[in-house]
């Protein structure tokens, strides 16, 4: 028990930051282990699936900025993942740009899209915020469906190239493509970490825990929320763009609400407010879906839905949160 636990309304995050002696060594060990795992992944898992894991992990980390640190559950993040996937695909198809450029264009588009939607959505909080973001995302879905000249509608946007300065192995082999795309994923993760641990991130947590107090201290609460929303959307867009390039195809599914639901599931399974929990969640869910699909099981929703129900009922801290809780309580004994 450290002194800060005695404060009646210290946030969970502050308690976490205040305790743990020698946590920087632990942090570096974890970071190194994570990097090694990320580099080794396509040796052990079918490379396209490894890329799926990396993209969904970044997507979940992006959502957690908003959910875990801003306390806002967006149930419409498919709009930014899928919106960016379309723009990335279009830029790659029509302009023949190298894929990192296309992906950045997609991420930028997501941020622009998130600006008005975020501005409107932050007028509500809690459950209302979830419903409003969900409804706006569905609007994006219908637009993508209607605008089939551009998006291909139900057929999807096909034949998206992995253009990369004429380096043939990266452009054709999923194994090498993974290593070409990984730096962008890691960059996104690093950006998320920076956002959360910056003064901006601290204000965000303050707003989450006590919005009136943050307002009284002179912070423009709504502006911080919109900024968090836009940043989160940008990182989600980065992930969605990479996903589109990796698959060489963008389907309507990417902007559908089931995608929004899936990333929430991954984040909650990993642990809300843990940032890296989403990575574990992505590994579990994507590998599980891949196994189920290849075994010919119909009705993946039955399994994922049950996982969801079990997590929400039984361990709301998620995998990462539970692990950390165990370690922390053992050390405090």
């Amino acid at each position, binding site marked *: 028990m450290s002194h800060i636990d005695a404060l009646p309304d210290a946030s969970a995050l502050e308690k976490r930051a205040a305790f743990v002696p020698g946590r920087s060594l632990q942090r570096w060990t974890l970071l190194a282990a994570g990097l090694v795992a990320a580099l080794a992944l396509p040796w052990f898992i079918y490379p396209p699936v490894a890329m799926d894991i990396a993209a969904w992990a970044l997507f979940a980390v992006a959502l957690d900025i908003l959910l875990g640190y801003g306390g806002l559950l967006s149930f419409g993040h498919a709009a930014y993942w899928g919106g960016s996937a379309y723009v990335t695909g279009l830029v790659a198809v029509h302009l023949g740009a190298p894929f990192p450029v296309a992906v950045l264009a997609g991420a930028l588009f997501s941020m622009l899209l998130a600006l008005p939607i975020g501005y409107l959505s932050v*007028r509500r909080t809690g459950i209302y915020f*979830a419903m*409003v973001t969900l*409804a706006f995302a569905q609007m994006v879905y219908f*637009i993508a469906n209607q605008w089939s000249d551009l998006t291909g509608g139900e057929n999807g946007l096909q034949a998206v190239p992995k253009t990369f300065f004429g380096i043939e192995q990266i452009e054709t082999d999923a194994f090498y493509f993974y290593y070409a795309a990984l730096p962008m994923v890691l960059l996104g993760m690093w950006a998320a970490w920076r956002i959360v641990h910056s003064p901006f991130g601290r204000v965000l947590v303050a707003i989450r825990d006590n919005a009136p107090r943050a307002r009284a201290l002179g912070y423009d609460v709504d502006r911080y929320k919109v900024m968090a929303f836009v940043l989160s959307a940008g990182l989600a867009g980065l992930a969605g763009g990479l996903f589109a390039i990796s698959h060489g195809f963008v389907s309507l599914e990417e902007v559908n609400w089931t995608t929004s639901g899936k990333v*929430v599931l991954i984040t909650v399974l990993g642990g809300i407010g843990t940032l890296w929990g989403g990575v574990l969640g992505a590994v579990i869910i994507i590998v599980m879906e891949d196994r189920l699909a290849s075994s010919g099981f119909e009705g993946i929703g*039955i399994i*994922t*839905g049950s996982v969801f129900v079990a997590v*929400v009922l039984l361990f709301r801290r998620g995998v990462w949160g539970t692990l950390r809780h165990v370690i922390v309580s053992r050390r405090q004994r």
Partner: protein
Amino acid sequence: MNAVLQYTIQGLAAGSFYALAALGLAVIFGVLGVVNFAHGACYMLGAVTAAVLLDVLGLGFWWGLLVVPVLLFLFGVLLERSLVRWLLALDPLYNFLLTFGLSLILVDLVKRRYGVSGLPYERPEILTGQLKVGELGLPTYHVFVFLFSISICLLVWLLMTKTRIGMIVRASTEKADLARALGINVNRWVTPVFGFGIALAGLAGVLAAPFRAITADMGSSFVIILFAVVVIGGLGSIVGAVVAGFLVGLLEAFGQAYAPAYAQILIFVLMAVIVLVRPAGLFGREDAA
């Protein structure tokens, strides 16, 4: 003129489903503070159950109208007792997520059992054909659906405002602590109210059965529009849910008639405008925001 009347009745019929289901959503939210994501799945279950009743037991539409809500009420009671109850004390987002997971399970279970193609269902003889009003011919089923649903909404409204049960439920919604202090056992009403809300979704499903394709996915986009409906009407407001339900139905029908490409988008544009101008919704109270 003829066309306008045609679209109006079509919109009111479509709005009937939204109004009934949104009413269920609003009642559940009011008393439990839960936004039931599985409401679309329950609507789908209503339609599927009606189709199965007809197929297996030979029970037709009228029986379906009677039996399905009872079955879904029991289903709702079971859900509340076994799952929803445990999360009521926590942030409402947890029950939102729980019911989201449930709807994934329900949809895929139905898909596994009955496949993805639609189940057949026929409307009763009486409700086929056209109703002559002067020179105009209106589809009988549309008129029936509208009248039926508006009477149910009216009944629920009367139940909530004029009876003792309704007063207790409203008191539990608005000032739960005060109601408890006056000796009302608020918790006793939680389970039946949840079941009641689910039953309304099921009822909307039965009404939709002869009208829409009965598939496992029929509730998936329905529930999203339902969310737009309650945001427009003001979450927790019973009148708001019904009015917004019919409004959205009309918007959809006229949109499909005059600008088919934008019909669905219009609903969300309306929602965006409402969120901008009146964040609490048409009939919502500001303090509930």
